[in-house]
C-alpha cells in the first residue's frame, strides 16, 4: 500500500487550497442533500444552506484571489504535466461572479416563496423548491466554474455536461407546468445534439494532435502553420473541422446564432428565477470558455496564423449576426420574458465581438478584449438581475409576463418601475448608466485593436446601429409603465426582499456609470493581466 502511494501523484494542500471555492460548493451540495435526509423536505432550510454556501464561496474565492496574485497561478497536475484545472485571476473572477449571482438567485427564490404563500390560490403555476432544486442549481454552478478554469479538453467536456444536465432538469422544476416541460424538452434536445457535435470535434482534435491539452494543441497547430511553405495558406482541415465542432457546443452555451433557437422558448417556459440564472450564468460561462480557447490559440500563434485569422473572422461574423438577430426578433415580442431573452442574445453578440479581437497579432491586444468582456459581464449581471427581478415581482403578482401586466406600473409600484427603467436604459447603453460604461469599454477595445485588423471597425458600426435598434423595444416597456395607465388597476403589494434586490442593482448600475466608471476599467484590466499561458516546451520553439 505504501509503495503504491509512493508512486501515485497526490495534489498538495497548497494546490487544493487554490480550488477551495469548488470544494466549498461541492460541500454545500452534499450538505443540502444530507440535511434534507435528516430534517425532511423543508425548502426554506435548503435555501438557507445554499445561500450560506454561496456566501462562504465568496469568502473562499476572495481568499484565493489574494493568493493568485501576479504570477501566482496554479494548476492541478503532477509536476511537468499540463494542468487539469487552473487558477488565475480570470477564473477567480468567474467564480466570484457565479457565487454572487447564486446568492442573488436564491434571494429571489426566497422572495418568490413568500410571494407565492401570500397568494396561494391565485397562481396557476405551482411552486418550485425542495432540496433537489438547490442541488441542481448548485451543481450547474459547479460545472460552470470548472468550464472557465481548465484547458484540458476532457475537463472542459465534463464541466460542460455538469453545467448542462442539471440546467435541463431545473427548467422543468415545476412538474405541474406544461410550459416548463416543453421548455425542458427543447433545451435537452438542442443541448444533447450540440454536446454530441462538440465531443466529436474534441475527438478529432485529439486524433490530430494526440493530446487532450488545449495549450499543446494550440502550440502544435501554430508550429504546423509556421512550418508551411512561405505562402502559409495551407489549411489544416482536420484541425478546423474539430475546432468548428467544438465551437458548436460553446455557441450553444452562449446562445448565439445559429444555436439560439432554444433560448427564448426555454427562458419563457422556465421558472423566472431559473430564467435569470440561465440568462446570466450560462452565457458568462460560455463566453469565459470561448475567451479561454481563443486566447490560448491566439497566444500560441505568435504573430497570428492563417487559422487564427479564420477563427477571428468566424467569431466576428457570428457576433455581428447574433446581436442583429437578437435585436430584430425582440422588436415584435409581447412577452417581457421573451423580450429579455432576445435582449440577452443581443448582448451575447456584443460580448462575442470582443472575442474576435483576441486572436489579433498585436501582443497586448489580448488583454483589451478580455477586460472589456469582464467589465461587460459585471454590468450585465446587475442589469439582468435587476430587470428579471423586477419582471419576476410583476409576474408573480399578475400571473402573466405579458406587456399589459406592466401598465401603469409607475403609479402602481414606483419602487419597481423606477429601478426597472434604470436597468432597461442601462441595457440600451445610455449614459450615465453602467450599460454605457460597458459598451464604452467594448467599443474602445474594438477601436484600439482595429489598427491591426481594420475590419473590426465594421463590428463597431454594427454594435452602434444595434444599440439604436434596441432602444425601441426597451423603451416600449418603459412607455407601458409610465405613459399608459388604467385607473382601475390597484397598487402592487410586493415583498421587501424583492424591492431591495432590484433597487440595489439599479443603484450600483448608476454608481458604475458615474463614480465607478474608471475604477471598473482599471479592475477589469488587472483581471486580464495574469492569464494562464502554457509555457512553451523547448521542443516546440519556433524558428524565426
Amino acid at each position, binding site marked *: 500500500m505504501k509503495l503504491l502511494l509512493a508512486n501515485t501523484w497526490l495534489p498538495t494542500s497548497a494546490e487544493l487550497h487554490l480550488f477551495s471555492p469548488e470544494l466549498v460548493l461541492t460541500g454545500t451540495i452534499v450538505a443540502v442533500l444530507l440535511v434534507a435526509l435528516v430534517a425532511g423536505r423543508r425548502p426554506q432550510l435548503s435555501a438557507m444552506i445554499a445561500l450560506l454556501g454561496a456566501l462562504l464561496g465568496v469568502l473562499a474565492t476572495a481568499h484565493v484571489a489574494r493568493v493568485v496574485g501576479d504570477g501566482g497561478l496554479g494548476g492541478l497536475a503532477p509536476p511537468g504535466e499540463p494542468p487539469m484545472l487552473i487558477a488565475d485571476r480570470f477564473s477567480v473572477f468567474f467564480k466570484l461572479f457565479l457565487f454572487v449571482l447564486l446568492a442573488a438567485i436564491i434571494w429571489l427564490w426566497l422572495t418568490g416563496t413568500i410571494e407565492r404563500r401570500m397568494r396561494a390560490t391565485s397562481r396557476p403555476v405551482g411552486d418550485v423548491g425542495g432540496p433537489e432544486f438547490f442541488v441542481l442549481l448548485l451543481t450547474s454552478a459547479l460545472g460552470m466554474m470548472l468550464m472557465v478554469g481548465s484547458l484540458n479538453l*476532457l475537463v472542459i*467536456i*465534463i464541466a460542460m*455536461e455538469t453545467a448542462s*444536465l442539471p440546467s*435541463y*432538469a431545473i427548467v*422543468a422544476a415545476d*412538474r405541474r407546468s*406544461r*410550459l416548463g*416541460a*416543453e*421548455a*425542458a*424538452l*427543447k433545451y*435537452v*434536445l438542442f443541448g*444533447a*445534439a450540440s*454536446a*454530441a*457535435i462538440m*465531443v*466529436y470535434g*474534441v*475527438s*478529432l482534435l*485529439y*486524433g*490530430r*494532435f*494526440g*493530446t*487532450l491539452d488545449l495549450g499543446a494543441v494550440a502550440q502544435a497547430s501554430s508550429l504546423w502553420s509556421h512550418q508551411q511553405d512561405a505562402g502559409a495558406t495551407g489549411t489544416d482541415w482536420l484541425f478546423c473541422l474539430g475546432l468548428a465542432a467544438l465551437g458548436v457546443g460553446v455557441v450553444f452555451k452562449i446562445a448565439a446564432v445559429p444555436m439560439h433557437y432554444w433560448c*427564448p*422558448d426555454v427562458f*419563457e*417556459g422556465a421558472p423566472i428565477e431559473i430564467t435569470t440564472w440561465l440568462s446570466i450564468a450560462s452565457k458568462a460561462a460560455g463566453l469565459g470558455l470561448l475567451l479561454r480557447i481563443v486566447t490560448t490559440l491566439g497566444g500560441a500563434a505568435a504573430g497570428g496564423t492563417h487559422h487564427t485569422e479564420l477563427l477571428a473572422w468566424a467569431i466576428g461574423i457570428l457576433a455581428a449576426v447574433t446581436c442583429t438577430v437578437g435585436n430584430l*426578433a425582440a422588436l*415584435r*415580442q*409581447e*412577452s417581457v420574458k*421573451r423580450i429579455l431573452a432576445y435582449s440577452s442574445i443581443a448582448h451575447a453578440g456584443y460580448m462575442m465581438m470582443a472575442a474576435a479581437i483576441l486572436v489579433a497579432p498585436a501582443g497586448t491586444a489580448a488583454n483589451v478584449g478580455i477586460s472589456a468582456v469582464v467589465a461587460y459581464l459585471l454590468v450585465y449581471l446587475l442589469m439582468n438581475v435587476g430587470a428579471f427581478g423586477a419582471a419576476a415581482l410583476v409576474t408573480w403578482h399578475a400571473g402573466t409576463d405579458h406587456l399589459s401586466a406592466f401598465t401603469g406600473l409607475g403609479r402602481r409600484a414606483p419602487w419597481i418601475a423606477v429601478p426597472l427603467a434604470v436597468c432597461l436604459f442601462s441595457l440600451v447603453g445610455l449614459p450615465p448608466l453602467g450599460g454605457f460604461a460597458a459598451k464604452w469599454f467594448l467599443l474602445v477595445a474594438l477601436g484600439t485593436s482595429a489598427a491591426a485588423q481594420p475590419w473590426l471597425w465594421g463590428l463597431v458600426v454594427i454594435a452602434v446601429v444595434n444599440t439604436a435598434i434596441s432602444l425601441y423595444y426597451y423603451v416600449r416597456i418603459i412607455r407601458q409603465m409610465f405613459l399608459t395607465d388604467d385607473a382601475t388597476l390597484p397598487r402592487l403589494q410586493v415583498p421587501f426582499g424583492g424591492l431591495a434586490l432590484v433597487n440595489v442593482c439599479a443603484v450600483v448600475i448608476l454608481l458604475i456609470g458615474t463614480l465607478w466608471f474608471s475604477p471598473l476599467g482599471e479592475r477589469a484590466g488587472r483581471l486580464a493581466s495574469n492569464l494562464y499561458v502554457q509555457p512553451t516546451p523547448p521542443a516546440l520553439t519556433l524558428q524565426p
Partner: protein
Amino acid sequence: MLAAHLLVGALLFALGLVGFVTRRNLIIIFLCTEMMFQGIILNLVAFGRYPLEGPPTFDGQVFSLFLIAVAAAEAALGLALVVLLYRHRGTLDAGAWTTLRDE
C-alpha cells in the same frame, strides 16, 4: 486500421444525427443521441490506439470511460423527461409540443 475505425465511428455519428433530425418519436430521438455518442467513443478509442503522430496514449480510452458515464446520465435525464412529457400530453410525438413560440 485507423481509417476503418474512423469510418464506422463517423457512420454511427452521422446516422445518429440524421435520425435525430428526422424522427418524431421522443424515445427514438434520445436513442439517436446515444448512437452519436457511441460513434464518438469509437473515434476516441481508435485515435488512442492508432495515433496520427506520436506513441499510442491512454487518453482516448479514459475519455471514452467518462463519456459512457455522461451518455448514461443524459439518457437517464432524457427518459425521466419523456415520462414527464407523456403524463402531460399522452403522446410521444415531439411535434405535439409547440406552445412556446414567437408570436
